[in-house]
């Protein structure tokens, strides 16, 4: 099963995103973007469950999303 990481524009927005999701009952973890060769360095929020809902909540709250990484657990 993939590990969904929602990439945002900065570590400040990643932390804000995590707090926002917590308030909406969604667990999230701030993590470094793992595949920097493609995206460059940065941060995202790993959302084990409910990534689609999380992404919607973040967009509704004006948090710019740069993309989503679906990383294998093995990686």
């Amino acid at each position: 099963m993939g590990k969904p990481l929602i990439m945002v524009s900065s570590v400040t927005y990643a932390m804000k995103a995590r707090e926002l999701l917590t308030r909406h009952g969604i667990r999230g973890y701030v993590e470094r973007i793992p595949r920097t060769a493609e995206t460059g360095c940065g941060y995202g929020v790993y959302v084990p469950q409910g990534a689609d809902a999380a992404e919607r909540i973040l967009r509704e709250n004006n948090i710019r999303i740069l993309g989503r990484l679906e990383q294998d657990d093995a990686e």
Partner: protein
Amino acid sequence: MIYLDNSATTYPKPVGVREAMLRSFRELGANPGRSGYEMSMRTTRAIYECRQCAAQLFGAAGPECVVFQPSCTQALNQVLKGFLKSGDHVVVSDLEHNAVMRPLSELTKRGVTYTVAKVTPADSDATMEAFRQAMGPNTKLVVCTQASNVFGIRVPVERIAALCHQYGAKICVDCAQSAGLVPINLTDSGIDYLCCAGHKGLYGPMGTGMLIFRDPQDQLATLIEGGTGTQSRSMLQPDDPPERYESGTLNVPGILGLRAGMEFVKKKGPKRIWQEEMQKIRLLYGRLSRISRVKLYTEAPSLPWYLPVLSFTVEGMPSEAVGEALAGAGIAVRCGLHCAPLAHDKMGTETGTVRVSPSIFTRREEMEMLASRVRQICQK
């Protein structure tokens, strides 16, 4: 030493500030926002919490609105040089510090013009009329101190903000002296850019300051570009605050100290600190007003029109000579022009004044001792 130069920088700092800075050296020594290992993430979290603390103290929309800067001067430069373009007109008050006037003067070489509006102490209507008269069709920005760093005269920045928005202009407020004393709500007040020092009324360490945006999407051109720890494939500076304006490694010990300073202020309550310091300044004003050779330049300062900053001169003595005599008695004050020649021109004190500024730690007896020493100087 009796330290009465708190408008320059507060001293001493609360114990919590020193402890927070020590903790950063002991436990949070990794670079924030650059890595994913545990200490780096803990440091990043601590920086984020400082942003939250500032956002709460100043009523900003969120932590992303809080940009750390090395000083209030740097924050003001960021706004002025990041916002203004050739052909733009600016309105400033006649109390501005050189932190505003020098960058603005530099910008006049690039086609920016400005008008100085007169502040009438304790008369907001007259001040508002002066700002209204100064506004023009090309006015894009008003830059205004919230209170004079020399005379403590307060400026009605919330009303000026409303005026600015009527004209389609923005307002940048220099809160160097007022942050930590005057309660400010960025969202309600309409202030677009708030610039403040961390080391004055917020009781943080030197080398800290903040630029706080009302609207985080309100983008300024950057003064510096470089590494932000994010979107590093791109050669373009990131769009989003706060990192857009914070290239390079942050001053972690300073920022953690600043957070402790702000927590100290929040716990005491800015208004309470303001009231307590005003009592000390009024006591001094009363004592000095009875000394015949002492000249005071404002009415007896009172809330809400003044901040606890008092200037005086001694007839027949340069301000620096008075300062030297006080220093000889172990009393620290600031003399001269206080980097605010405009304010001195306004008040007719072009040769300088002696400035006294207490902090929450100043005792009434220290004000009495200062007055007593000034009396002795005047009797010589």
